[in-house]
């Protein structure tokens, strides 16, 4: 494993740590094998690899949708295996998630989808009324606040999802194939948005097999193959042997 040589990032604390993590699914399918990985605060890391290489599993372990079979995942210094079911929602509020299929609530408008993320955390109404328009402005969807997801284009829907992920001001953004359903232009916009979010200090973890967007990001690249890390470029391009 090649360590990040970026001096500035070296100083930052470790946000996420994988300590010889393995994940086995039913039927002895080994999705991840002995993963050791440090992701520092403020880093932008692209996880690449073919389908089935374990990218999604890696991300799912971070937002605790799955539990590691062996080893331990640490988030901000805390082992995730120690989080009780009841505390899990609080962990998830520290992480913004973005998916290929957007995962917007279909019966809610743009505004309501974003507000919902704040409502569940018990934020006061005034705060919601203030934050949601702000965040809509950031992603450039202020004029689509009252539209339902089906009235939006794919790129717009993904921006709503990003806005929702950001509204908690999470420490980490996890994006699993966020451009998988989008055309190249929309993809580029999304990745630019993610870069901007990263520049504002949020750690971004991007899983993708889209060469163009990984190259565009031009940040640390982690290459997975059959559940193992086979390369970790500090600053680089999408390369799969």
């Amino acid at each position: 494993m090649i360590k990040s040589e970026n001096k500035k990032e070296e100083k930052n604390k470790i946000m996420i740590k994988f300590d010889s993590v393995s994940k086995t699914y039913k039927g002895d399918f080994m999705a991840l094998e002995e993963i050791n990985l440090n992701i520092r605060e403020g880093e932008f890391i692209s996880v690449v690899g073919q389908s089935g290489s374990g990218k999604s599993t890696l991300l799912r372990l971070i937002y605790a949708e799955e539990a590691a079979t062996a080893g331990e995942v640490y988030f901000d210094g805390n082992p995730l295996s120690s989080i009780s079911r009841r505390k899990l929602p609080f962990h998830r509020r520290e992480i913004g998630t973005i998916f290929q299929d957007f995962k917007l609530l279909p019966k809610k408008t743009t505004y309501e989808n974003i507000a919902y993320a704040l409502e569940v955390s018990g934020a006061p109404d005034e705060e919601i009324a203030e934050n949601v328009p702000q965040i809509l402005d950031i992603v450039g969807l202020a004029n689509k606040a009252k539209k339902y997801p089906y009235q939006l284009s794919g790129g717009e829907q993904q921006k709503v999802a990003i806005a929702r992920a950001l509204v908690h001001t999470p420490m980490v953004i996890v994006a699993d194939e966020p451009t998988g359903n989008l055309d190249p232009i929309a993809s580029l916009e999304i990745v630019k948005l993610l870069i901007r979010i990263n520049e504002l200090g949020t750690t971004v973890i991007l899983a993708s097999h889209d060469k163009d967007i990984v190259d565009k990001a031009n940040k640390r690249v982690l290459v997975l193959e059959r559940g193992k890390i086979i390369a970790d470029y500090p600053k680089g391009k999408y390369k799969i042997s």
Partner: protein
Amino acid sequence: MFLMISRTFKESIASIIRNGWLSIATISILIMSLYIISIFFVSTSTANGILEEIKNKANISVYFKADVKEETILEAKGETEKMGEIKSVDYVSKDEALENFKKNNASEPIILESLKEIGENPLLASLVIKANSSTDYQKIAESIKTAEFSDDVSRVNYNKNRDLIDKLNSVIATIQRVGISLGFLFAAISLLITFNAIRITIYTHKQEIEIMRLVGASNMFIRLPFVFEGIIYGIAGSFVSMLLLFISLKFISPYITSAIPTGSLVGFYLGNFWMILLYQILLGSFFGVLGGLMAMRKYLKV
């Protein structure tokens, strides 16, 4: 906490409105279940009421010979009252018997005419005995036969009612047996149907539940809207079912009343309106909430 309740309540209202057709379908099924159960409940209650009334009318009349003095009869009355299983003993004097007879036959001038022909009162004084339970009449009749005053007795008309009482007892037993099993059957069927309807509703929310979890909603926050939805379904279903029940009882009632004059279904409905409504709301909400919670377990991973 208050914020959570008010938010999840609003959430449930929005969900009901935005899932319009599905909500209507779920409520309709709930209405049918509640309606069937209520119809059943009302008819068994009415049947029981009618039986109770018939039972109350059952009695043993002990007629005394014409020459027996009133004091002797009253003595016999006191003696009868001391027997077990007696609810009441009423003395009907000759004159009262005549009055009753005239009243009952007021529309039959020929009978009244012939009564006048006779000149004197041909009717006998009697004791009307009511038992606590309709099964006790046989025993009471036996006791009277062996009582001290048995020599003064002209006749005991228990036998006339005997068939009716026996039949009544077997009818009551059957109704209770069949009623209980049918009641359970209907309740079980309704529960299953409602349950499934709500499971389907929840299934359509499957992805939503997943998303809610991802944005960090606690299980309680995800569950409460469905709980409220269940309660609202229950209340809405109850009101409609009450209306349907009223309409159908209004329709059926005249037929029942013509067959058995004492049973008024509408009267029963109005008399027990609040109780029936309360039961329906409780039952409906119970179905709604339980169905929802059971169906959600799967998606909440609890």
